[in-house]
């Protein structure tokens, strides 16, 4: 099981969609891959980094940079892959839209991992619309075998038709596992760099020609797609024909095995001939797709037919077999013998020992809240902290605070600081800070530095000191970087030193000028404690004030019978004594000697 997967040259593996994409890239002879972590896409690059050393793989500071470096590698004739979550493609949209004009020297595959249902995202945008807007070829696999095969096909299409290819997947593809036949790696030499200004410099005179080529390319790929095995007609009962793609295909097959199906793997440009033939050979047309009515609107407007789609399944949330059954075969809806029970939710929480707990607890105690950002620390919005009030996108904490200040100039400011993790700050928060300096803001920005991209499972970033493939790397010096932006007040504080944290927060928020607080303490995923240590509670000293419970620590619960807090031995994090610090009577104690 520990074996690296590049040692497996043939056979069948049980792979997640993400693992299958990594495998497909490896088999295609890909040379280079870059990404910024983002659920549900993260494991693609992690798998490449762990199992496929033939591919030079790296984390980029953000999605835009990841696409730019793979673009450069493609210009130098390498086969390249960049992977990101759906909202990451917004960040990378600028290079993507013009790369579409420039094309691909070495094959370019861009993975967009969409998150319908928003399991771990702030919106559920459907990036099939991005592929259409960028005029790039798009493929949609429906299981792990296709994720592998379509990745291989994507490299071929990219080079043959001189286009970046968007491999559009969703959470249920990325994080589902199924059996996949694998093959060996095909070694392809890097073609090398040749100067080609007309191809790679889209000044208007060149770009106009490029656009013409893009339009021709879409026509050619559409015609090619009519004969491609990416698309499949399955003729069964001809009274109903279902047109579908991606994960929706599986639900259709599950609930309506006798229906005729046109399964589209190539969804931009659409293969019009095969669609037209299918429409002619069946009775009623139904379009089952997750998200926006992308296929529906395209097909309806092209053929002016009355195909039903979003009238039957919602465009919000994920599809599932229940919804597809209700749409296609309402008479077969399955009775559930047991009714659902209303139960208290179990939202995620900050881990025991989390550095952020000290910062948010202090903020809550001082009635401070934050303009927030994307990461573990978004959980600062939860009780008992209630210390986060806005989230827009990666990096927005800083700009949003700046804007609130500008709108309220001369008026009373709400008690807000900008709270942003170090990885998110490097991703796109720093430009907001430069704006604050430049435009004379005076607020407080709190960079929560745990030196790891934590929410996505603990990936390296420029502050970690290590690369994706485990090589040592220089540590980005946040203090020097902030200083270079022009910030004069910079304080570094350990957020688990509650007294100091409080003093710093008070002092910096009262300062008449822009201030940056760096709360610095490593993520608990970044180190292994040397020994176990559990907080001890003395019930005789306890005054039952529940101050420890207000930490929101998963290791502390209330024992209603004894009327005292109960410490969970399993959850108590060795290198943390926040509860000891907040107990007003010294009823809690802990030995921290030699745990780290």
């Amino acid at each position, binding site marked *: *099981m*520990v074996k690296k997967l590049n040692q497996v040259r043939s056979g069948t593996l*049980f792979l997640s969609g993400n693992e299958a994409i990594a495998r497909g890239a490896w088999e295609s002879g890909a040379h280079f891959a870059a990404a910024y972590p983002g*659920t*549900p896409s993260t494991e693609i690059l992690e798998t490449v980094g762990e199992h496929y050393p033939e591919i030079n793989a790296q984390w980029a500071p953000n999605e835009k940079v990841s696409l730019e470096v793979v673009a450069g590698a493609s210009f130098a004739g390498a086969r390249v892959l960049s992977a990101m979550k759906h909202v990451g493609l917004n960040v990378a949209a600028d290079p993507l839209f013009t790369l579409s004009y420039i094309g691909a020297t070495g094959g370019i595959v861009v993975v967009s991992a969409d998150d319908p249902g928003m*399991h*771990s995202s702030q919106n559920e945008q459907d990036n099939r619309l991005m592929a259409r807007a960028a005029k790039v070829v798009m493929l949609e696999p429906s*299981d792990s075998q296709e994720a592998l095969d379509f990745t291989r096909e994507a490299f071929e299409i990219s080079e043959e038709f001189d286009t970046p290819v968007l491999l559009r997947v969703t*959470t*249920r593809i990325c*994080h*589902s*596992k*199924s*059996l996949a036949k694998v093959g060996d790696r095909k070694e392809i030499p890097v073609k090398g760099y040749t100067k080609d200004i007309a191809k790679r410099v889209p000044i208007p005179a060149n770009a106009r020609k490029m656009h013409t080529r893009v339009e021709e390319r879409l026509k050619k790929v559409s015609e090619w797609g009519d004969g491609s095995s990416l698309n499949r007609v399955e003729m069964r009962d001809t009274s109903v024909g279902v047109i579908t793609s991606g*994960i929706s295909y*599986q*639900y259709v*097959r*599950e*609930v309506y*095995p006798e229906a005729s199906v046109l399964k589209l793997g190539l969804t931009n440009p659409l293969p019009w001939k095969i669609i037209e033939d299918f429409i002619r050979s069946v009775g009623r047309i139904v379009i089952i797709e997750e998200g926006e009515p992308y296929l529906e609107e395209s097909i309806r407007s092209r053929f002016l037919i009355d195909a039903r789609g979003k009238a039957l399944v919602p465009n919000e949330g994920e599809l*599932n*077999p*229940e919804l597809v*059954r209700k749409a296609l075969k309402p008479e077969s809806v*399955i*009775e*559930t*013998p*047991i*009714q*659902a*029970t209303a*139960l*208290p*939710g*179990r*939202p*995620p*929480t*900050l*881990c025991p020992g989390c550095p952020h707990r000290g910062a948010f607890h202090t903020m809550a105690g001082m009635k401070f809240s934050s303009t927030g950002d994307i990461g*573990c620390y978004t*959980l600062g919005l*939860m*009780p*008992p902290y209630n210390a986060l009030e806005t989230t827009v996108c990666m990096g927005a904490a800083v700009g949003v605070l700046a804007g609130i200040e500008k709108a309220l100039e001369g008026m009373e400011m709400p008690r807000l600081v900008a709270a942003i993790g170090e990885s998110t700050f490097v991703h796109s928060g720093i430009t907001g800070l430069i704006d604050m300096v430049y435009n004379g803001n005076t607020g407080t920005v709190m960079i929560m530095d745990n030196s790891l991209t934590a*929410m*996505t*499972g603990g990936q390296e970033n420029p502050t970690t000191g290590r690369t994706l493939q485990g090589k040592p790397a220089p540590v980005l010096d946040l203090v020097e970087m902030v200083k270079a932006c022009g910030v004069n007040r910079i304080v570094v504080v350990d957020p688990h030193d509650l007294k100091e944290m409080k003093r710093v927060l008070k002092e910096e928020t009262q300062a008449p000028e822009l201030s940056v607080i760096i709360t610095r303490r490593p993520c608990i995923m970044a180190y292994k404690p040397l020994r176990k240590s559990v907080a001890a509670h003395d019930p005789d000293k306890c005054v039952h004030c*529940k101050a420890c*419970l*207000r930490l*929101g620590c*998963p290791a*502390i*619960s*209330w024992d209603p019978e004894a009327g005292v807090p109960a410490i969970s031995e*399993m959850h108590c994090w060795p290198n943390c004594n926040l509860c000891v610090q907040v107990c007003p009577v010294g009823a809690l104690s802990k030995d921290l000697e030699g745990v780290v």
Partner: protein
Amino acid sequence: MEGTTNIILCGTGGQGILLASEVICAAAWNSGFDVKKSEVHGMAQRGGSVSSHVRFGDKVYSVLVEQGTAHLILSLEKMEGLRWAHFLSPKGRLVSADIRINPMTVNTGAAEYPDVDLLIEEKGIPCTEVPVLFIAKELNNYKVVNVALLGAASTLIPGIEVSAWEKAIEERVPAKAREVNMEAFNRGREVPHIVKEVRT
């Protein structure tokens, strides 16, 4: 599809749900079945609810189990089992660990932990409770609760021989923890028989 076995595993972050579902999939694959599983990562890792759907049979399409069709729900936390119980088929069974983990809302007093046993009885949910904490204590290893529960449930999963389970554990569990997990599996496997004896 008819003939497909549908299993849902649930619990909270860090309990080993994903390893348990990996073992079921490997055992089913070892037994010659087509297998699919689905799970949700990301925010769920931070102590939130975690679930995994596993389906195996001659040919599996949907990765998700449909409501009212689960043959088994394996729950590593009592309330989480109840949360998924409406997925059970008329002949399905909930196999639950004797573990209670308070959500943060209960710890802070914002919500109350329900009387799960009472609700299970009132709703008539067929349920086997497995004393995994007892097994874990005997083996002096809390981490094996997932595989102990799996051992108990394995007797209720059709089409997979003991040898396929053992091979799956060998394949999926890291070498240094293999022996204790095998033991936990075997002790879990005894449980349904013990329960039956007590009831009859």
